[in-house]
């Protein structure tokens, strides 16, 4: 404190100015200044220590609590995030399972449908072939029948003409006599 006053007195010219410093003196403080600074610091420190310690402690405690709360909140958030992640992973896994199941179902359905369609097509094809064969056989039979009818008709037309030409009066009489004889064999 004394040094401080001395210095102030020096500055106002009451004390003879010291020698002009040089070298390291330009950087290093004066001993007096150093001591005064230490004392001032100690005073400030003590004032702060006794007067501000409670406030600082409370502030630090509050700050610590806030940080702990934030850490806890962060941990909670992290846990929630992990839980959500697990849920998402579970959902994704479920979705993948569902997707696989759907794909498998679709594949199975498609396979069943394909089998049924193939079976139906085979059955229909077999039925068409069977009907075609039946129709062909029927047509063949009808054609054969028609040819047979035609041949029979032509043959009988020829025979009728031949018979008509061959039946003379004598043959007519013989046929009538034969008819009368056959009538005799009939009974009412």
């Amino acid at each position, binding site marked *: 404190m004394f040094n401080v006053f001395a210095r102030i007195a020096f500055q106002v010219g009451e004390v003879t100015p010291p020698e002009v410093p040089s070298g390291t003196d330009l950087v290093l403080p004066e001993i007096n200044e150093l001591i005064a600074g230490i004392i001032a610091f100690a005073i400030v420190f003590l004032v702060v220590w006794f007067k501000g310690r409670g406030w600082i402690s409370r502030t630090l405690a509050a700050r610590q609590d806030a940080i702990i709360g934030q850490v806890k909140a962060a941990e909670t958030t992290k846990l929630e995030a992990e839980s959500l992640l697990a849920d998402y992973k579970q959902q994704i896994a479920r979705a993948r399972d569902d997707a696989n199941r759907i794909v498998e179902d679709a594949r199975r359905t498609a396979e069943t449908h394909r089998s049924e369609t193939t079976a139906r097509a085979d059955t229909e094809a077999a039925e068409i072939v069977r009907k075609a064969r039946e129709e062909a056989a029927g047509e063949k039979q009808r054609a054969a*029948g028609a040819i047979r009818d035609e041949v029979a008709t032509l043959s*009988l037309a020829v025979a009728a003409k031949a*018979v008509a030409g061959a*039946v003379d009066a004598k043959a007519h009489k013989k*046929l009538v006599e034969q008819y009368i004889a056959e*009538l005799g064999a009939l009974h*009412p």
Partner: protein
Amino acid sequence: MPTDDRIDGYAAAILEVAKAEGQLERVGDELFRIARAFESSTPLREALTDPRIPAERKKGVIDDLLGAKTSPLTVNLVDFVVSAGRASDLPAIADRVTARAASARRKAIAEVRTAVELDAATIERLTAALGKATGKDVEVKTVVDPTVIGGVVARVGDVVIDGTVSHRLQQLRETLNKR
């Protein structure tokens, strides 16, 4: 009037006239032959049934066809039916007259078709044979029909006894068709 009643009416009228004239059998026989000719001849049928041909011309056709070989009474009766516009009913009327006349004599009509005309002796034996075969007292009406080729077909009511060559050929055809 229903067709059947109309035919009955005409047949009854013709029967009464023929009976009154004492020509029932002849008229019945001639009408029967005319009806068969009407059935088998398309030009005759068309000439007598065509409404565009005048009645006088139809009468001329009848006189030309029947005048020489048929009794005047039968010709007049046919004229009567044709003039009344009932030519298409002529076969049915003739059949009804024949049937009624035969029925009056307690006989059944046997329509006999042959390819050639039969002599009286053959008709007599045929009548006896048909009577025995059908159990009825029959009166034979013969029709010459070249389509039978040979042999005889007789129809007594609903019974048909077919011994014609054409029938045998038809049976042969059916047999061939079955194979």
